[in-house]
């Protein structure tokens, strides 16, 4: 994976940049010491690292605006950073870039339960938004698995999903408005607390734009009443095909489970050894969770079990208590940790049409064998969002590259099956060069033309999302 060479002219102007930023920001908001900058050299795609020129940690929208004005004026690239949990390298800096971290933008600005929204600064973590409204019986629905750490700013940048988005949708379906600082420092309000906004759907464009269009500093989020309860059921099957067919039948039935999670044999084995959740010994495993009152849950689970029984499951485990629910979720929640214990891994997140699940899983197994890597699959089956985990050994030369080659093959397979490169992690740097497999030149040109409108000199998170050669001319404008 390549990143553009840093601009020497920018590097030599570091003292001037620091002085200008210090003049408008609190003393400790500008970080320029090399040892402190190491903290910003990567995000959760830790295989790639590069300390930035500087990091800034503003506390207000006004300060973000001042930072952008200065960087725009000096032609310095800015890489916005939420909590740095991106798996796609969305917050990976270059040596000539300023990291703009939102970590100090952490205030709740307004809670309105009557109109069902909350307005927050975007440095707040995903889970702390729910915590702010929980006592009043509400929650914020998108639940990426990093929700304890990840920031709303990053959720908006990546249009994050989570296990429960089958019922509640992803970030874009729960975002009502933003305050955004443009590349030139101008502050713009898009949307508001209403359920729709006038004019073109710029909010829909901003959400998932990976820091290409602006820095979102405040967000108005839809909050929902907390369900009365939730309970899962676990099914074991003797083949991926049968599990996949069961998923399709559940979806068609009119039931709307909040989650349908799928684990294949490599993952089941790994998690059993790691967490000992007591999963059945089988080829594929589904966890289906439903919500509602006790009676509603029992009723829905009975219907789901009836559907699953038509597919001859080798195991059925319906949770009867909170302890059993925790146990059922234990293996799923420790899947990444279990794989992590077996070695280093790359986590992909291509999406496919649900009907293609069995054939794509089989093809992934073939590709894994060809490339000599172990691949486990654990994912949100209800919406076809796969998470193949490719194991490799970082200490063995060539292993990362080989795992990446396999990853690229798997993602191309997802696209060819009628899906896409990324369902919830974003393109970042990781999938940048694969974009031409999914999009024709005119498709990418249209997307870059949109960035031109918001950021004519391409200083915001350049070298991300678009293949480097495709964006080269535009990036040269900065």
């Amino acid at each position, binding site marked *: 994976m390549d990143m553009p060479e840093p601009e020497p002219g920018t590097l030599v102007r570091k003292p001037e940049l620091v002085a200008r930023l210090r003049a408008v920001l609190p003393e400790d908001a500008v970080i320029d010491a090399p040892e402190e900058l190491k903290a910003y050299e990567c995000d959760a795609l830790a295989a790639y690292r590069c300390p930035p020129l500087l990091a800034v940690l503003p506390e207000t929208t006004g300060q973000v605006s001042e930072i952008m004005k200065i960087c725009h004026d000096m032609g310095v690239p800015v890489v916005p950073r939420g909590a740095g949990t991106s798996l796609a390298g969305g917050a990976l800096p270059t040596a000539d870039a300023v990291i703009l971290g939102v970590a100090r933008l952490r205030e709740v600005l307004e809670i309105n339960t009557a109109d069902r929204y909350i307005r927050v600064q975007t440095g707040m973590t995903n889970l702390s938004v729910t915590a702010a409204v929980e006592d009043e019986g509400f929650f914020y629905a998108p639940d990426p698995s990093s929700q304890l750490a990840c920031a709303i700013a990053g959720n908006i940048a990546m249009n994050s*999903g989570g296990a429960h988005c089958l019922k509640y949708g992803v970030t874009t379906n729960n975002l009502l408005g933003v305050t955004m600082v443009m590349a030139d420092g101008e502050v713009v309000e898009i949307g508001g607390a209403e359920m729709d906004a006038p004019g073109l759907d710029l909010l829909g464009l901003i959400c998932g734009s990976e820091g290409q269009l602006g820095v979102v500093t405040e967000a108005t989020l839809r909050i929902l009443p907390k369900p009365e309860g939730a309970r899962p059921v676990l099914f074991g099957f003797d083949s991926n095909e049968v599990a996949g067919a069961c998923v399709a039948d559940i979806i068609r039935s009119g039931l709307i489970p909040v989650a349908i999670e799928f684990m294949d044999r490599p993952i089941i084995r790994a998690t059993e050894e790691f967490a000992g959740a007591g999963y059945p010994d089988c080829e594929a495993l589904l966890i289906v969770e439903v919500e509602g009152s006790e009676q509603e849950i029992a009723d829905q689970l009975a219907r789901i079990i009836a559907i699953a029984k038509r597919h001859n499951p080798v195991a059925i485990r319906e949770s009867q208590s909170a302890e059993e629910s925790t146990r059922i979720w234990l293996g799923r929640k420790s899947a990444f940790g279990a794989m992590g214990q077996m070695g280093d891994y790359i986590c992909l997140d291509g999406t496919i*049409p649900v009907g293609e699940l069995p054939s794509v899983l089989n093809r992934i197994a073939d590709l894994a064998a060809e490339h000599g890597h172990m691949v486990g699959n654990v994912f949100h089956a209800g919406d076809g969002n796969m998470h193949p985990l490719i194991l490799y050994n970082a200490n063995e030369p060539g292993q990362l590259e080989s795992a990446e080659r396999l990853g690229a093959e798997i993602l191309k397979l997802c696209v060819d099956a009628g899906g896409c490169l990324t369902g919830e992690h974003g*393109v970042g740097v990781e999938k940048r060069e694969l974009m031409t497999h999914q999009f024709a030149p005119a498709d990418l040109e249209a997307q870059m033309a949109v960035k031109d409108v918001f950021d004519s000199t391409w200083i915001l998170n350049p070298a991300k999302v678009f293949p480097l050669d495709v964006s080269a001319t535009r990036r040269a404008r900065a």
Partner: protein
Amino acid sequence: MSILTAKETLAPQSEAEVCAAIRSTGACVIEGGGTRRIGLAEGERLITRGLSGVTLYEPGTLTFVAQAGTPLHEIDALLASENQRLAFEVPDLRGLFGRQGDSTIGGVVAANASGPRRVASGACRDFCLGVRFVDGRGQVVKNGGRVMKNVTGLDLVKLMAGSHGTLGVLTEVSLKVQPLPETVVTLVVPGCDAPGAVAIMSDMLGQPFDLTGAAWLGGKVMLRLEGFETSLRYRVGRMRARLRCAAEEIWGAEACTPIWCGIRDVEAFNNRGGDVWRVSVKPSEATGLIEAVQPEDVMFDWGGNRLWLLMKEGTDLRAKMTTGHATLVRASDETKRRLGVFHPQSAVLARISAGLRHKFDPDGKFNQGMMG
């Protein structure tokens, strides 16, 4: 109501013909079924109805792909044959406008046409998975796809939804659908004034009842639940316990459908003089707003988030509003020209929107006059 000045008509039969037509034409007005256009625009008519047909339907994955000119009724019938439907309850405004014609799926997406179920499931744009469109240079652009989770690149699907044909001519759309519920019930609470209605709707929407409709008209609050009967009986019981006032229960699709179609299509304002405005506002500010603007008649949908107002002809509603935003849906061309159909935007948003239009349509061919 004549809106456009049509000189000639372009009627491409394929995406390639759309490209050719755009390359050879000047200003054009894009038309699907011609049933829901609200803005003013001038130019040659470019009719998309020749691009018709569902190209892919996978009931097991809740998705379909259709050419943009496919009639809505064909899609409705196809989905119904598999016990599915479009989740966002597409309004049929032909009665309100006094128009004929067959709505097309492309027109639905271009208008982001969304009905009462918006309050629970989302708007049309939330169910749009992918688009193909032809830009002002006559080039085909695709974005999104046919899967439910997709964050690959910038989301031009959302941008195209609700862009009223100002950025390109949609040629194909893919959408997510919803299974039909087992049954439906409407709880009708009579004798409510506007503040009382908002209080009931906000309270009910703040509880985990999964309401799929919350509207107020003719002094009645209508609350809709959809799902399995056992579950609905339980929730209706809980709702009644919270309401502590008389409420009628109307069960089943046969009895509920006319009620919610009436709300969806703003039937109450059909064949009545006056201008029709659609207002978006925070529910807690809805009552204050109608007191300030004194409409001839009013209907609340989306729990008081969407207001339909019947105003005396030519009234400048926006001048009286202190909150929210308003679209002038039905009025004379003269009034629309004078007051503007779409709500004015801040200078910076207007600049961004104009910039996007220029990028997608550099020669200003599409729907000139529409959306500012």
